[in-house]
């Protein structure tokens, strides 16, 4: 288990954050310690939100007077759950379709690539924006259906690349000698999947999922800049925000981290804590997941490298043994 030390540490950290966020109603203040105005003893107003970080408000407060650290703690569960579920769905659908294409219909692979050629030339952020715009200003639609739609779109954006990857890897595995000999002995496709491919699929599936979590996090954050928030936007806008052009600034409804970044990024000159706290939090999340990804990549892809190296070493001594009859030996070659 020592080979997966970083993975275990990283995922348990994420799990702790998720649990703390899910259990927030049990211990946290329901209104995030909301306090808009500060009065002195005579009842006169001496200050109003937003307050900068201080001992009382660890990460400062929002314009609405809510403590940023409580808001962040409350909202992180949506970010994590959304990214994780999108990644898992992408890998499941893409993996299944990829394996089916590779095993039963290899000729389809080319056509599949052609069908989704658009995705190769237009960055996914643009496609996501175009597909998400229809629900930017929904008319009386329940949040659940907005979220479902957004998740479907997010899954769809990553689906082609995962499918092609999965098909490529399955093609590679089908060429290996153990699968070939299994076929020669009369195994069917289902048997191959169950016996030969499944052990590989487990490790590759986990690696894919982690990679997809990263890309989902990135795209959620980029979308939020364009005011396309996961979980819908609050049309009333941010409390106390004065726009020079008079339009309300949309606010994220779910307090999800990417949404918090997106709704506040214009305010970083006056109140940098509001946007930098979730942004740095996001950065930490990405760092943790990237650490897990690196280790998994090293373990899965590195193991194969080691095997080939070992093989080469085994093959080498043969000619050396034959030339041993000379007057001197090569100690290092």
């Amino acid at each position: 288990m020592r080979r997966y030390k970083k993975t275990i540490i990283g995922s348990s950290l994420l799990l702790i954050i998720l649990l703390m966020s899910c259990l927030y109603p049990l211990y946290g203040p329901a209104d995030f310690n909301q306090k808009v105005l500060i009065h002195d003893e005579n009842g006169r107003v001496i200050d109003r939100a937003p307050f900068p970080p201080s001992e009382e408000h660890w990460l400062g407060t929002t314009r609405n007077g809510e403590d940023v650290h409580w808001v962040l703690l409350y909202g992180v569960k949506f970010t994590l759950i959304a990214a994780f579920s999108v990644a898992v769905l992408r890998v499941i659908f893409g993996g299944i379709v990829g394996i089916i294409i590779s095993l039963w219909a290899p000729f389809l692979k080319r056509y599949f690539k052609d069908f989704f050629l658009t995705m190769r030339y237009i960055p996914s952020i643009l496609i996501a924006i175009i597909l998400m715009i229809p629900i930017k200003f929904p008319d009386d639609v329940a949040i659940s259906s907005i979220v479902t739609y957004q998740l479907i779109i997010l899954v769809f954006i990553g689906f082609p690349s995962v499918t092609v990857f999965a098909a490529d890897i399955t093609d590679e595995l089908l060429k290996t000698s153990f699968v070939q000999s299994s076929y020669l002995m009369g195994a069917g496709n289902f048997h191959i999947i169950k016996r030969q491919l499944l052990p590989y699929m487990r490790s590759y599936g986990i690696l894919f999922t982690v990679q997809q979590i990263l890309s989902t996090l990135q795209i959620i954050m980029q979308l939020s800049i364009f005011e396309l928030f996961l979980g819908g936007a609050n049309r009333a806008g941010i409390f106390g925000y004065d726009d020079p052009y008079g339009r309300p600034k949309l606010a994220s409804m779910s307090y999800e981290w990417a949404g918090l970044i997106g709704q506040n990024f214009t305010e970083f000159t006056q109140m940098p804590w509001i946007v930098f706290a979730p942004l740095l939090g996001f950065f930490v999340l990405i760092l943790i997941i990237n650490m897990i990804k690196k280790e998994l990549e090293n373990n899965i892809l590195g193991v194969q490298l080691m095997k080939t190296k070992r093989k080469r070493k085994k093959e080498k001594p043969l000619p050396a043994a034959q030339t041993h009859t000379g007057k001197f030996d090569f100690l290092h070659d």
Partner: protein
Amino acid sequence: MKRLLRSLIRIILILFGFLFIFTLPLVFGSAEDTVLVDFRSFWDGLKFNFQSLIQMNDSSYLELFKELDITNSYQYTMTILGGSLIVIIFLAIVISILIMLTPEKVSNRLKNGINFFEAVPDLLVILLFMLFVITLYKTTGLKFLQLYGVFGNKPYFVPIMTVSFLPLFLLLQFLVKVITEEQNQQYVLYAKAKGIGRLSILLVHIMRNIFPLLILQLRTIVWVLLSNIYLVEYVFNINGFTQQFLKLLFMGGDFASLVACLLMLAIPLLVMEALAWFISKFIKGKEAVSI
């Protein structure tokens, strides 16, 4: 004949894939609290979009597209793209050579530092650059770095710096990896044995050999640059192509305009692919001759 048929099928598939992706929102009609799957409106939308692509001689064709300030903004965006590409290639080659020339202990540490930047979100970089420019202005009063593109301003320096920051590290990582692999080759050892200095081995021999790989990698770099440029133009409020594109989207432009915009955005990538194709063909041809 068979080839012709196959390419015909390909073209039809690409077209339908395109139509499918962009009419996808119509599949999901929204009811009160569930998502309905509605194939009929999807099919109608497909037909409608297809028709709007074909009706060239209609007067409303590309109506919005002609209204927008396309050529200027496209030129501007492409200037930023080209400028940052040149900056990235130049800096990446110089820095990678410097890294390879430093002692092993230092260069290992530098490599780890480069790998760290892989995980930095692009938004963090953009906001930090903004903060840097603004604090520079506040503390020193110098206003030589233009940030926002309001009042017809066309800033170049800050957008190019911001856009090329992360891709630079991407290319640097790639170059360092490739050069390290190349240094294990026999000819490097031979050149070393002949007494050629490290710098000239790097500059003359290794650089020449990794040049095709660099060109092949440029597609990824342009891809990352493009998606960074959208963000930067939006955040800095620069009147580039992205703004026109978003205007088109939010004003509900017709499908043909959307297609035209997307094709224009794909041009740099197509150029890069063509370049890579020629390079690989050139190299293969050379090898065939040498054999």
